[in-house]
């Protein structure tokens, strides 16, 4: 009996001391879990923003390609009255780029910008500008006025709708 009491007293280090070996894996688990939650939260937010950006791009596309023909006489009005307010509503900046019959083979981000809203004041909307942004891009075929040498005719062109945040 006496020996048992001594043995039990020897084994008892203290309420915290007894759990010291488990503290390291416990701490590691807690730190890992919190770090994962923080990372996952950030990733979810990034993905959600990206989806919203693409949805905004689709919204603007539906307005831009309303009738399949780029009527350059009336497009500035559509840009001012429909596209710009839609981009404000969605909280994105945008550019609509037109490539006519002669420009069909141009690479991405090249063409004529026919409507835009940017955070920067009067920037040059070229490849270098767009490459710095996280973009959502949608391309569509359109009929547009083309100079064919035998007068202006309605030929095949494309429009590219680019949207981005700040």
């Amino acid at each position, binding site marked *: 009996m006496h020996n048992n009491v001594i*043995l*039990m007293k*020897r*084994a*008892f*280090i203290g309420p915290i001391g*007894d*759990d*010291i*070996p*488990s*503290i*390291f*894996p*416990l701490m*590691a*688990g*807690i730190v*890992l*879990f919190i770090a*994962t*939650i923080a990372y*996952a939260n950030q*990733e*979810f937010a990034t*993905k*959600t923003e*990206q*989806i919203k950006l*693409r*949805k905004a791009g*689709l919204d603007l*596309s*539906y307005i831009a*390609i309303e*009738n*399949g*023909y780029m009527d350059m006489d009336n497009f500035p009005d559509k840009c001012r009255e429909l596209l710009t307010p839609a981009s404000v509503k969605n909280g994105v900046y945008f550019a609509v780029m037109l490539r006519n*019959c002669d420009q069909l083979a141009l690479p991405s981000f090249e063409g004529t910008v026919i409507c835009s809203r940017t955070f920067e004041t009067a920037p040059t909307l070229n490849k270098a500008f767009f490459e710095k942004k996280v973009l959502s891009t*949608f*391309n*569509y*075929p*359109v*009929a547009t006025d*083309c100079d*064919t040498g*035998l007068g202006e*005719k*309605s*030929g*095949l062109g494309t429009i590219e709708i680019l949207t981005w945040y700040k």
Partner: protein
Amino acid sequence: MTSKSRSQASLFDGISFLMLTMVSIAIIFVSLSGYGNLQNSIIDKAHITSYLQDSIKAMYYLDASTLSTFSCRDEPYYCNQPDECRIDSSKCNMGCEELETWTGISVAELLKRDLRDYDGTVGTGLDDKYGPAPAPGKLAARCAFMKILEPFSSGGYTYIVDFKKVKGTTNQVPQTGKWITNNVEVTSCDTEMGQNKLVVNAPFRVFVSKETEADNYIISICMWSTRNVKT
């Protein structure tokens, strides 16, 4: 209990907790990797669908003569003589240059003027609504859709543009000769059941004269991926 066994027990508790944490983290990562895929897939399909709708709208404005510069780019399935094209690329000819003289008329108008094959026999294939005067409506549509849907063709998609006549029942309009497609084996929108097939239908009314009622057609574009990829 000895101090050794106590510390072993508490270490076991700690490792169990760590394992539990790892399982939770794995669940978080699995749900994270799947998040957004469905939404992106829906947005992609919405884009393709509106692209197809837009291509039908553009048909009503595209001057047929502007398509005369398009060529079949040595791709046999667009060419009039696919077998000869396979042997000799100089014989790859689609015939779009024939459209050069058709100025001031849109592809849709040309199609409505003559839904028949350009050189087909009267009464066969797509109906000739305005007598035997040949109008290359189908050729214009082939040239236009080849160029418009080029990004998708290059990306492994197959398309076909099909017509249906609505008269009591809706039936496919029979065709002979070349189809408006990038795959010679495809002859109908309905029978093709490719993975993730997208179909866009649009009304296509043909007025023959003021006195008679318009004939109601439906123009359909079907597109599906021939590669085993999710869109």
